[in-house]
């Protein structure tokens, strides 16, 4: 629930680990520490996709996580933006030919913002969030 219309510019993100090695998770956590403090701009992680504007996906999408990723994506209210963080989610990374992969992410759900790196630095993640925010504002404005 957005308490007031002024919170509409806040970006609430839901993080989904689709089989990541935890490297990207460490960098996401680093990005939300007081060193960068994106929460002062209203950017924060939430515990449910039903509260989120952005789906932050890490990992190459293993078989067990495919259905759950689709379900979580569908549970986010519109308009929504998907961020793919890390090389694994973009291309499969070192696991690209694994028997256990259903991914990469954009073969399962539509991706709006790619943040490459193994893992990407917090600055890159924050840049991706800003890009996602701009995309979301265009979606809400109906220009895209």
């Amino acid at each position, binding site marked *: 629930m957005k308490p007031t219309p002024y919170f509409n510019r806040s970006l609430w993100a839901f993080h989904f680990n689709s089989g990541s090695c935890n490297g990207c998770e460490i960098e996401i956590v680093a990005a939300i520490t007081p060193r960068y403090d994106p929460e002062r701009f209203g950017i924060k992680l939430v515990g449910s996709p039903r509260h989120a504007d952005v789906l932050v996906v890490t990992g190459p999408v293993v078989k067990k996580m495919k259905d759950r990723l689709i*379900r*979580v994506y569908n549970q986010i209210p*519109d308009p929504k933006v998907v961020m793919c963080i890390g090389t694994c989610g973009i291309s499969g990374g070192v696991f690209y030919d694994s028997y256990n992969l259903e991914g990469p992410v954009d073969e399962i759900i539509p991706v709006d913002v790619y943040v490459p790196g193994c893992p990407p630095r917090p600055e890159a993640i924050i840049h991706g969030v800003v890009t996602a925010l701009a995309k979301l504002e265009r979606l809400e404005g109906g220009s895209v």
Partner: protein
Amino acid sequence: MPLQTRAGILLPFSEVPEMTLIESLSTGTGFWNPLAWLIAVVVAAVIVYLIRHRGEPGYKKGTIQTVPFISGNPEPDKEMVHVRASNLYWGYLDALKGYYDLIVPAHTGVLNDYMLWYLGIMAALFVVVMFI
């Protein structure tokens, strides 16, 4: 003027004071005013409406967006997630397990068995009353 009665006193029907809609009834242990209750219900309904009105309006009804989030897993049937009475009474039943292990098998549901129990208990009582 509030109507006055005394707690614990039963009045004959002819002496029960009549109430109007906005009149308070003081019973000695509290008071009752239908209009106050009506106002309270209306105020509560307005508060509920305001809270609900400020919720997220972007959900599409009838889609997966309105079902509970269970870590990405499908929502089980309501019967599967319902907390049964046996869950609430587990400690009670477990503490009296010795008692229930004897009593539950005795309840066979067969009328003949119950009649045998009835006659047996009656015979035992007869012996107790007559000879002890």
